[in-house]
Structures are given as C-alpha cells and as structure tokens.
C-alpha cells in the first residue's frame, strides 16, 4: 500500500524540499550582497505551473516548439529535411518533364 510507505529522501530531495530548506530560513549572517528569494511559496507555484504546462502541452499536442527551429535543434533538422525534400521533388519534376519532352519532340516530327 502506497500510504504506508513514508517518503524519506536524502541526497535526492525534491527541488521544492531543497528550496524550502536552503532559502526559507532565518538569516544566519548577512552577506555583503543581498538578494531576497525568501518567497519559496511563490517559487513553488511557479515551478509547479512550469512543470504542469510542459506536460499538459504535450498531452494536447501543443509541443510545437520541439519542431520549431527557433526552439530546438530537432526542429532545425526537420526544417532541413523538409527543404531537401522539396528540392528533390522539384528535381524529379524537372527530370520527368525532360524525359517527357523528347517523346513530345518525336511525335511532333
């Protein structure tokens, strides 16, 4: 039963657990540089939304960035293939026309 197992993690604590511990605690000693990232709750929501939106996007087929050359190298490759494909099509069309032409010429004479 899942309920009976108690979650106990050590080195591989979840990101949220880590952030809660390394960010959200009282000031020990102030450093020279002050950056306040104490709002772990807001950060947690942000992380959850980020993770959720990636999964959700894939689920509903909104993973367009994977094929968009601007966002992924995989997309760049796809674009290259598409261009190559188009070029080959043109080339075949040209060859077909060329090979059809002599026949045309023959029949006309």
């Amino acid at each position, binding site marked *: *039963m899942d*309920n*009976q197992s*108690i*979650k*106990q*993690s*050590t*080195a591989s*604590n979840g*990101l949220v*657990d*880590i*952030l*809660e*511990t*390394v*960010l*959200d*605690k*009282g*000031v*020990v*000693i102030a*450093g*020279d*540089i*002050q*950056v306040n*990232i104490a709002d772990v*709750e807001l*950060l*947690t*929501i*942000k*992380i*959850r939304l*980020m993770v*959720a939106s990636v999964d959700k996007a894939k689920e509903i087929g909104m993973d367009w960035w994977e094929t968009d050359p601007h966002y992924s190298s995989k997309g760049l490759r796809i674009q290259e293939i598409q261009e190559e494909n188009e070029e080959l099509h043109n080339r075949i069309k040209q060859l077909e026309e060329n090979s059809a032409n002599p026949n045309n010429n023959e029949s006309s004479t």
Partner: protein
Amino acid sequence: MILTRHKCMQKERIQLNELENEELIYVYAFLPAQEASSEKITGIKGIDPNNEVKFHTRTELTAVICKVPATDFAEENFKQNVENIKWLQQRASHHHELMNTLHDKFTILPLKFGTIYENEERLEQMMSEYYEQMKTILEEVQDKEEWNLKIYSDPQVFSKKVLEENREIEAKKKEISELSKGKQFFARKKLDQFITDQIKAETEKKCKEVHDKILKFSQNAEVKKNWEQKVTGRDDEMSWNCVYLMETGENVEAFTRLVEEYQKHSVEENEGLLFESTGPWPAYHFANFKCLTNSVKS
C-alpha cells in the same frame, strides 16, 4: 553631442570590464578549524564550475568558500539570475549537495543559499565579529541532524468525524431549514465556519500529539508555516510542517519508528493522516543566531 555620447559608452565599457575581472566570495558554511585541518577537500567543483571549493581559515574557524565571478553574482546580476528557475535550480541543488557532503565529514554551520562577500577582508571581518556565536552554534549542532515532518490530512475523513462527534450539527441544520431565506444564508455560513473550525482543531490536536512525542527525543524544533493547497498542488491539506534537530543515531531511529507507527495506525484506523518526513539535513534551521536564546521546547 557626439563627443559626450562617446564618453558615456567608454564609461559603460569600463564598468563592464571591471565586473568581468572582479571576483566575489560565495560562502557555504563554517566549521571548526581543527576539523578542517584533519581532512582536506580537493577537486570539488564549486558553484562556479571554473573554481574549486576551498577552505579559508582564520584562527579557530574555517569558512568553506568558492570564488565566483561578479558577472553572475554581483547584486543586480544575481537578482536577475535567480528569476531564472533553471539557473536557480542548478545552483540551489549544488549548494544542497555540497552541504550534505560537508555534513557527512564535519560539524558545520550551514548558510543560506546566496551568502556572498565582496572580498577576503570582509569575510574575515565578519568571522571575527561573530566568532563567539558561531562557536556556540557549532557546539550545539555537533553530531546532530535536521528532519522535516509534514503531516497532511484528508478533509473528508475529518469532516465526517466532526459531524459524528457533534450531534448538534444535524439538529442545527434542521433548525436552519425552517428559517426564512435571508436568515438561512447567514445561519448556514455560521454553521459552516463552525464545522471548518472544528476540523482544524481536530487535525491540530492530532498533529500536536505526534509533535509532543517527537519533542521528547529532539533537541530543538521549529514549527513552520503550513502551505496552502495552491502551493502544494495536492487534494489533502497540509496540517503540520516542522523541523526537528536530533542527535544522529538513536534519536533519529526513534523518530523514524514513531512516524512509521503513526502512519500505520492512521491507515488501519482510516484516520486520514499522511506523514512525510525528509532528512537527514544539515542543521539549516538551527544554525541561526536567533535560535541561541529561544529554544522552542515549551
């Protein structure tokens, strides 16, 4: 006009160059110098991958540090960087993992993520200023570790329990249905609030019972804020969030056993409680200067 603009650009460039060459000091933790001299740390990549983690000793204290470029860690740049979750995630994880390594080997006073000094003089100044307090904290956290316990409660189980134990609620509901429409609205609201309060009191009572038992074998505790559901993203409610400072060994074993027993009991009796503990953590919450005077053991 053109001349002044040119001058401005030159000035900007100098500032950028200054930042590029400038190094700051990122501090992870402090430890007793005698422990630092017995074991060396070498070849560990720091929070800036181009620099290694080093010891910086001054009299009886040793700081665990890493040189970092100002281009990443100067106040404004650092502020921008932490907005980037990926950047923050990598650095915070590194901070956490290195701290675990240190905690395995030494007695440490772990610092919060992002404690940075401008130069060695500033670091040393601070080390001598807080020397006595740091020494006291190091003695307090020696051979101890931190554990976090979160208890989640199932609101349905608890509301059922509250309704069963408060027979008058049923009668009250009937009473309300006989009132005029306008009066019904407010009376119902009042009753709902009563039920919510009862549920909260009931879960708190349960959690407090567990907490009091844990206090018997922990040296310090800090009760933290419960996270709202929009933060946890869970269907159940966080009803308890607390960190405990415990001696490594027997105390921790007793804690683990106790939590396991409570979990087992909750499942068997359908009490609607879910226990989640994480640890061992270095004593992050107890390496706090404010902790020195007020122990939470009440």
